[in-house]
């Protein structure tokens, strides 16, 4: 069966879009690699282990007419459109890419020790598995996401030794009263659990032999260079420096990209979430990191565009405000290049291929002038994760913003499954 719309990604953008499009009378497929709906933001506890959130139920209950294809990892999309996943191929007239984002990470000495998790990883353990990541936890990095992570861990019984926010200038957020109130709410919850919140500080090293036993926290200047340090004992570090949108599928289809205010590549879309490729839409973090509310509104906007109905004025205004706030967050929580001074010669930059900083410098010395040639000479980004973890760091070490990812294989696929792929692409209408 050929769908009118295939939505890839069942987070807030994908769920909202699939629900609205299906209720508008279209045949809709909603596909996600996870076995449960929700994506990262609306990640639900194991079935029966607790009540789903109201926001999640609101989105889920609108999906009754959409076909759900859960636990299906999409490894490639082709014009026409064919969506190839690990269980086969489905086809659709139009495509919405709502594949979300993952934590952006920076390398630092010891970041490969067990016990160091991304902030999103700690959150996924807690929300999706009811597992508290550790007993004594440090939360560090930059961005508003650190707050729910820290308060969630503290409320679940962990001792959160501190939140270390690298950014100095949070005052600008006061311009948005509603958001400031939300921030103050987190502040109250941190205070209730006696979690200290520090600005202008960062975890610059992790310690331990075979597992994390502590971290070095530094006061950093505005370019993130170390001013002074102290050690904090902990068994777990949850660290994240914002998010990297997952653009693989959009790039496969040749969708034009642009950049977030901080240089991150994102899919370029118009007001109807249309990409440069006719029939392909993008919504949520793939078009710029902006959070769940914006993602949902963009999903609705995409559904309206596909249905040919206008997005209600009220929603359009909300979307514009959410976008404006997202832009502000990019300004308030930038990543500064001073993290490069945290690296030692033997600090791994690429975790998969175990490429130390020294090898990156050697590659540059051998004539590698950009991220791609560094990769060709020193192998960062050549391993299992294909540069998803180290891509940002390698690009910045090369002095450039990360290029849009070119990954014709968006998820690993076994040779036998690839061999079984239809030798001829479905006909393009």
């Amino acid at each position: 069966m050929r769908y009118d719309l295939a939505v890839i990604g069942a987070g807030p953008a994908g769920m909202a879009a699939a629900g609205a499009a299906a209720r508008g009378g279209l045949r809709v497929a909603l596909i996600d690699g996870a076995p449960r709906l929700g994506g990262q933001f609306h990640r639900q506890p194991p079935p029966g282990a607790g009540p789903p959130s109201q926001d999640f139920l609101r989105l889920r209950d609108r999906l009754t007419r959409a076909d759900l294809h859960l636990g299906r990892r999409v490894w490639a999309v082709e014009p026409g459109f064919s969506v190839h996943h690990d269980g086969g191929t489905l086809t659709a007239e139009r495509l919405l890419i709502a594949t979300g984002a993952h934590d952006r990470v920076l390398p630092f000495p010891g970041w490969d020790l067990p016990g160091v998790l991304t902030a999103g990883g700690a959150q996924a353990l807690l929300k999706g598995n009811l597992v508290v990541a550790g007993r004594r936890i440090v939360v560090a990095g930059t961005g508003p996401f650190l707050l729910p992570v820290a308060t969630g861990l503290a409320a679940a019984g962990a001792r959160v030794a501190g939140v270390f926010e690298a950014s100095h200038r949070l005052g600008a957020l006061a311009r948005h009263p509603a958001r400031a109130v939300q921030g103050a709410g987190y502040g109250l919850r941190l205070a209730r659990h006696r979690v200290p919140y520090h600005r202008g500080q960062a975890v610059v090293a992790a310690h331990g032999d075979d597992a994390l036993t502590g971290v070095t926290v530094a006061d950093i200047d505005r370019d993130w260079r170390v001013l002074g340090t102290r050690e904090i004992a902990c068994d777990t570090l949850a660290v994240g420096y914002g998010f990297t949108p997952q653009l693989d599928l959009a790039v496969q289809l040749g969708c034009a990209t642009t950049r977030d205010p901080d240089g991150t590549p994102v899919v370029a879309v118009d007001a109807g979430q249309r990409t440069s490729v006719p029939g392909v839409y993008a919504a949520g973090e793939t078009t710029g990191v902006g959070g769940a509310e914006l993602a949902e509104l963009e999903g609705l906007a995409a559904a309206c565009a596909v249905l040919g109905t206008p997005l209600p004025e009220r929603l359009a205004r909300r979307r514009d405000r959410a976008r404006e706030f997202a832009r502000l967050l990019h300004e308030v929580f930038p990543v500064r290049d001073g993290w490069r001074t945290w690296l030692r010669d033997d600090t791994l930059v690429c975790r998969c291929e175990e490429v130390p900083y020294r090898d990156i410098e050697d590659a540059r010395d051998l004539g590698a002038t950009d991220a791609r040639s560094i990769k060709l000479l020193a192998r960062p980004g050549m391993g299992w994760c294909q540069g998803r973890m180290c891509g940002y760091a390698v690009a910045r070490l090369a002095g450039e913003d990360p290029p849009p990812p070119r990954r014709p294989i968006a998820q690993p696929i076994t040779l036998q499954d690839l061999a079984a792929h239809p030798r001829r692409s479905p006909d393009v209408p």
Partner: protein
Amino acid sequence: MSGFEIVFSGRPIPVTPGQTIGAALHAAGIRSWRTTRVNGRPRGLFCGIGVCFDCLLTVNGESGVRACLRVAAPGDEVTPS
């Protein structure tokens, strides 16, 4: 629904239904289950959402499984990859 067990290198690990293998191991205090190819260093969960591939292990003979994504099933035999 009550819990069940999986087996990690001969050791029983309790699982709450719906948990991933990675979450169950982590909750049982097992923080690493793989050693790296070059330096032989321990690895376990890092990104926790299927992106970094640090948490690979072998489940019932199937290698290269992301522990953070695979929902545990009763009786799963899990070994380092």
